């Protein structure tokens, strides 16, 4: 066991911390799930991208730093410790990008990834449908072949797309073979939200922000992927109108890979929970100083704090395994279940500390409402 960081890693941390200290907005930005807040967040995303902090683990050509998984962990830890803004680009970066890296054509990678890291294309997910919920295989949105136009015509409704009202693109599954059962005959489409026939309607989330949207597709045309031989400018023009990720009818496999990344390591680095645990401890100490902290409540703070540490250590083990080429296997879902429940417990302990003031619309109540979505989205625990 070796819990020391290399000189290179320490230097990376220093660079990262220095930049964040100088650049993290103060006061904090308004919620990125409101229209005004989203604009402010977009500015922040652009600044991150310019300083090449937007996607540290990606290749430099796509706006990254080729950072190792360890460096990515360091970045995340520093990012949350600095109280930097929530990433409104995260659904693209964490849910779609891994699939593009794995299933995208070279042309798609070159086209979509830099635009994503630069926050030019803003992606929302189109997983859920009104009658499918978290059961991806029950998708009923369909795509009909249009051989004349060389593409597909998409019709259907997607819902619960986080920040969908503010994004530019959606990714999701559409049924391309109506005869096939459930998992089969689905295709993974990339769709610009300004395409003809797309309507987006934002609606309210539990915390009052307009953070959800419904996306309606009414005979929306998405072209086939450009042939390798096509002139790059023409190919780019085609890809601007959307495309297909992976093979036709093979969308289930692509989506499952993406879902794994949602449930797995990449979405929730321990830094976020350790930062929350540290703020919880500060709150507990201030209650203690004013004589309002009983032992039983202090114990719940301790329990939540210990679990945040346990999550961080568990992740160190996971990353060690991944770096050394061992697959996390069946245990990859453990991560998601644990952090989502941990996040709820951290916030519950904080609300208990606030007592009669818990109901007030402050950061802990907001955070609690957000935490409650953890066990819901990406499938219930």
């Amino acid at each position, binding site marked *: 066991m070796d819990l020391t960081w290399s000189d290179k890693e320490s230097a990376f941390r220093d660079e990262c911390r220095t930049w964040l200290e100088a650049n993290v907005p103060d006061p904090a930005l308004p919620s990125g799930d409101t229209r005004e807040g989203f604009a402010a967040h977009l500015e922040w995303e652009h600044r991150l991208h310019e300083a090449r902090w937007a996607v540290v683990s990606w290749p430099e050509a796509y706006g990254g730093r080729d950072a190792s998984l360890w460096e990515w962990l360091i970045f995340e830890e520093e990012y949350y410790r600095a109280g930097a803004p929530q990433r409104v680009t995260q659904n693209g970066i964490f849910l779609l990008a891994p699939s593009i890296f794995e299933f995208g054509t070279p042309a798609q990678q070159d086209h979509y990834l830099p635009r994503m890291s630069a926050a030019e294309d803003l992606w929302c997910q189109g997983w*859920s449908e009104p*009658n*499918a*919920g*978290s*059961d991806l295989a*029950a998708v009923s949105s369909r795509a009909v072949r249009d051989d004349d136009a060389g593409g597909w015509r998409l019709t259907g409704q997607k*819902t*619960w797309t986080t920040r969908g009202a503010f994004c530019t693109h959606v990714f999701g599954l559409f049924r391309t073979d109506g005869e096939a059962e459930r998992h089969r005959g689905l295709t993974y489409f990339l769709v610009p939200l300004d395409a003809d026939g797309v309507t987006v309607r934002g*609606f*309210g*989330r*539990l915390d*009052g922000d307009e953070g*959800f949207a419904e996306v309606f597709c009414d005979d929306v045309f998405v072209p086939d992927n450009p042939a390798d031989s096509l002139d790059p400018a023409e190919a780019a023009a085609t890809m601007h109108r959307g495309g297909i990720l992976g093979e036709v009818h093979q969308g289930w496999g692509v989506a499952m890979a993406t879902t794994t990344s949602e449930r797995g390591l990449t979405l929730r680095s321990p830094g976020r929970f350790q930062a929350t645990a540290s703020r919880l401890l500060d709150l507990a100490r201030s209650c203690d100083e004013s004589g309002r902290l*009983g*032992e*039983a*409540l202090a114990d719940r703070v301790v329990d939540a704090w210990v679990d945040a540490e346990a999550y961080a250590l568990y992740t160190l083990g996971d990353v060690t395994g991944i770096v050394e080429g061992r697959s996390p296997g069946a245990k990859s879902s453990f991560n998601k279940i644990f952090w989502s429940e941990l996040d709820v417990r951290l916030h519950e302990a904080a*609300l*208990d500390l*606030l*007592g*009669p*003031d*818990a*109901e*007030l*619309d402050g950061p802990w*109540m907001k955070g609690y*409402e957000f935490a*409650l*979505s953890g*066990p*819901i*989205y990406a499938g*219930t625990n």
Partner: protein
Amino acid sequence: MRFELTDDQVDFRDAVRGLLADRCGPEAVRAAWDGDGRVRPAWDALAEMGVLGALVPEAAGGLGRDDEDVIPLLVECGRVALPDPVGPSAYAAATALGSLLEVPGAAEVAAAWSERVAAGDVVLPVVDPSAPVAGAGTAAAILWCVPSAAGPQVLLADADAVELESLDSVDGARRPARVSVLGGEVVAEGDAAAGIAAATADRLALGAAAELVGLSERMLELTVGYVGERKQFGVPVGSFQAVKHQLADAALAVAFAGPLVSMAAHSLATGDADASRHVSMAKLRASTAARHAAGAALQCHGAIGYTVEYDLHLFMKRAWALSYEHGDPDAHRSRLRASLGLTGSSTN
């Protein structure tokens, strides 16, 4: 021995249930978010039916009922998430004003305010000045049950002698404010004031507990309805064992909180020496059961429960707020420790 409502109490409750079903649907609660946090048609009808004066002595124009009669009505208010202050004003304050009728020098003002409460004016008691008071902005008076430097006292302060610091609640219909009084009339001092303050704190807590039971029942009903209709993987969501298990667990917690609330009401009505203990038991379990029910409801609903367009959040947010108000679970456990003679002072 009979641990059940009387026929008369059942009739009264059913009448209130009908009234509220007509006048306080989810759309009315939503409107209260955008308005002043009140559902006037329901409130006015409750005044007309006599509910707001149920605890006012008959001599002062009320129905002269007791805790046992009124607590089931507060359960009904919880079931529809009525945001109006039936518990604080028509239960806790009305009872306190009733006690003041016996206090030399306070009888006249108490009688006048009792009549106003019965007619629909809002009087809100304050027992803990550091805690936000929901709906303070629509109060005609504050019953300030906070000891002064000179000892226990109860003040009755008109709205114009009250200063409010408005706050935002997660529940948009609650409109809490921190309250301070700038003047007002001293209506009780010494032991009388201390007794009224303690009894008022108990009734505020028990009223919240009753509302929590109603909210919990409603959240569970909504959820049972939803999971029975909603299909996933080709079958109703409610047929999944994990969903059934979660709901049964929460239903159990709610079912065993109800009798504690009834018992506390009986104890307060009969002046039982253990009434305060029973109130703490009731509020503790009503709070934990409501959180349990809210959690199960949200989990079983999935994403739709997470939206403000669906009704669940109206009940859930009220439940969160009330579970902390008038003594959160830790505070009532602490009272119970003391009541049971446990100091728990070791920290080894």
